[in-house]
């Protein structure tokens, strides 16, 4: 489209560059500020010679191999499990209304911050937890909790459980999002019907016809999940073993250690963490290629039915178990937040009180306000930048390049533990007094990709003929943007805003580090209390943490409806 040189158009044209800069510079700056100390350059301690002592130290750390192995195995297995279950659910319920119900049940889990989820799952599976209470003492004979090493088991099974339950809704909703795209979704469903008419059982039809077309859309979300899981801190910290912990947790502890020389080892660890994550991403990609090669001939071998019925039943079982776990975990949180004394093995607290909510709410307003302000600013910025960048796409008539789309996901693919510590140092250099701005910028790194992801498809799908018609009627680009595109995109914008808010609400490390601890959000409070002594206070904070984003999505769902009915 040929556009004139107006102020709006200049703004639009420059916004992709601004967006890229806001995403790339902090990550690169943060990485440099970690690479230098990793190789021995740390002037504060008087180290100005480059060497590899940090890596030698790291190598000599007891259990370093276990740490790396634990990080790699838990993230790979949990991502694989989440992916397989996602596919099984899609395959089993592809033509059933249950897909919609499961989506509605799992949707809220997506917005539960990792820390809150870990707290909830921890209570469920701990020896004195809900599961144990359900069978005690009538079945198990336990009057006191059994002395089992779970959670916190050395194999990381509890981490895998936590990560899988948290990643699964994300992948499933991503897949359903793809299927909800009108054209693609329609074609895939029609192709599925064709396969059925050719005698394929629904499960086989899904695997042979729908999955190969669906997977390319899921690849990036899966890789993001894998990268996140390999370096996540909250779930391994709350559910994982500590002798030794995962590498990411160990790195965080070294960065925070009193012994400042450990920073060098921590920086070296961060480099190793990046290498591990890249290796994982590469392995996934290779596995994908191998499976594709191996299965290509199976696609056309004409076999219509494998063990469809058995797989279907297994999927039913998994789905029911998963929903039970999630339901019980949430119920447990609610019970704890109102619990008087709750002795083992009682299934319910002896008394219910509101004092935990009262005393927590008294202390909560400042963090609550900060949470909302930061979330609002970061999300608002992200939406404006995303809309302008997408608008620029249409002005120049080409979608963002492949490199740019990778850059957009950079903060999701590079372990945040690796660059956040460096980023804080960089922010220190530039602007150490306005911590609020620093926190908003740090949140923007993680909010922007999700907002872009959520908004891009709707924006690109918008029928260009509306703009052509408007332009032929003499409307300027700015007018078309404000009066045609934005109103038509109202619902997706609200959804993207709710997603952005949810992502911002759940940020722990970025808030802690960029805010220098001066800015407390509900999430930082929840994590610092999670390690604390009171399950009841933790439960209140975790529930508030869950309620906030849920409220956001409720508004995003209700507001456009209200605005539209108002118009009618």
């Amino acid at each position, binding site marked *: 489209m040929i556009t004139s040189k107006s102020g709006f158009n200049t703004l639009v044209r420059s916004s992709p560059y601004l967006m890229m800069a806001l995403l790339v510079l902090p990550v690169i700056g943060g990485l440099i500020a970690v690479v230098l100390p990793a190789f021995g350059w740390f002037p504060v301690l008087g180290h100005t010679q480059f060497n590899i002592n940090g890596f030698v130290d790291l190598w000599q750390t007891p259990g370093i191999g276990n740490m790396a192995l634990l990080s790699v195995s838990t993230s790979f297995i949990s991502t694989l499990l989440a992916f397989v279950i996602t596919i099984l659910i899609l395959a089993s319920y592809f033509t059933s*209304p249950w897909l919609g119900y499961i989506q509605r049940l799992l949707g809220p889990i997506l917005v539960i911050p990792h820390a809150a989820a870990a707290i909830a799952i921890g209570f469920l599976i701990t020896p004195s937890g809900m599961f144990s209470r359900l069978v005690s003492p009538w079945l198990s004979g336990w009057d006191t909790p059994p002395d089992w090493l779970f959670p916190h088991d050395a194999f990381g099974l509890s981490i895998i459980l936590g990560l899988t339950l948290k990643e699964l809704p994300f992948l499933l909703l991503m897949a359903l999002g793809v299927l909800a795209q009108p054209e693609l979704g329609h*074609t895939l469903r*029609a192709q599925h019907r064709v*396969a059925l*008419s*050719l*005698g394929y059982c629904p499960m086989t039809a899904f695997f*042979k016809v729908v999955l190969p077309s669906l997977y390319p859309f899921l690849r990036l979300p899966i890789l993001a999940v894998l990268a996140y899981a390999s370096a996540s801190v909250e779930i391994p910290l709350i559910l994982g073993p500590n002798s030794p912990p995962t590498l990411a947790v160990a790195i965080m502890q070294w960065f925070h250690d009193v012994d400042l020389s450990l920073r060098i080892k921590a920086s070296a660890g961060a480099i190793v963490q990046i290498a591990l994550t890249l290796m994982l991403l590469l392995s996934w990609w290779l596995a994908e290629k191998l499976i594709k090669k191996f299965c290509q001939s199976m696609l056309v*071998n*004409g076999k219509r039915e494998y063990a469809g019925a058995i797989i279907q039943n297994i999927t039913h079982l998994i789905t029911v178990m998963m929903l039970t776990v999630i339901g019980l975990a949430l119920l447990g949180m609610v019970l704890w937040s109102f619990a008087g004394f709750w002795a083992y093995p009682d299934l319910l607290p002896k008394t219910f009180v509101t004092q935990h909510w009262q005393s927590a709410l008294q202390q909560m307003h400042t963090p609550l306000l900060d949470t909302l302000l930061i979330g609002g600013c970061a999300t608002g910025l992200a939406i404006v930048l995303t809309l302008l960048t997408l608008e620029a796409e249409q002005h120049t008539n080409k979608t963002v390049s492949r490199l740019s789309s990778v850059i957009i996901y950079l903060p999701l693919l590079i372990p945040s533990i690796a660059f956040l510590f460096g980023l804080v140092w960089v922010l220190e250099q530039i602007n150490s007094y306005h911590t609020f701005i620093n926190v908003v910028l740090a949140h923007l790194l993680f909010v922007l990709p999700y907002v872009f992801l959520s908004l891009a498809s709707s924006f690109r799908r918008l029928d260009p003929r509306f703009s052509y018609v408007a332009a032929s009627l003499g409307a300027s680009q700015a007018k078309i943007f404000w009066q045609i595109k934005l109103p038509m995109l109202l619902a997706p914008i609200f959804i993207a805003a709710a997603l952005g808010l949810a992502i911002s609400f759940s940020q722990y490390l970025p808030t802690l580090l960029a805010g220098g601890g001066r800015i407390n959000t509900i999430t930082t409070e929840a994590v610092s209390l999670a390690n604390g002594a009171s399950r009841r206070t933790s439960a209140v904070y975790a529930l508030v943490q869950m309620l906030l984003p849920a409220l956001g999505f409720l508004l995003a769902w209700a507001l456009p409806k209200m605005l539209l009915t108002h118009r009618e």
Partner: protein
Amino acid sequence: MQKHEQISAANSNTSSLVIEQLTIQRQQQVLLSLNETIAGGDILTIMGPSGSGKSTLLNWLTGMLPKGFSAKGNLYLNGQSITDTASHMRRIGLLYQDPLLFPHLTVSGNISFAMPASAKTQRQADISQALSQVGLAGLEHRSPQSLSGGQQARVALLRVLLSQPKAILLDEPFSKLDSQLRQETRQLVFEQIRQHKLPAIMVTHDQSDADAAQGKIISLF
């Protein structure tokens, strides 16, 4: 092709699709009623404006009636009731207005996908022969997206036929083709249906399609 003709010929005596006392309702309202027998090689044409229940009928025939609809009546294929048979067990082939070729498979992959499991080399030979019969010789390893609209429609037809269906449903099969191509493709499809002696139902809103089918025409309103 020879092999399939033999199979079809063996079935030809009993080959029929019977719709017995069908009533489809939507929220207590009767959408359509039908009582028809289609012999092998015959094409029943259903005409009517959109919303008249054409696609609902097809959905019932394929066992994919959506929520909110209810149906009474029976469906017999070659004398066997398939009223409650699962979609994929009915062996009723479907041809849509979109070819709906699978983009991740080649032309030969798409057809091979439809064929019953058998030796790979035999299947490849059958596919090559079938392709050359419809003027697509040598396109086995092309991706479907690289074909023209008419070529795609022919591959979709071969895919249905080589899956050895016992009946065939045509859902506005030619509406996306331009008039020259439309005529050619239509001729090819009808020829093949008659050759295979398959009972067929075609849904269309185009009078020339209906005329070319040379069978009974039912109009829904």
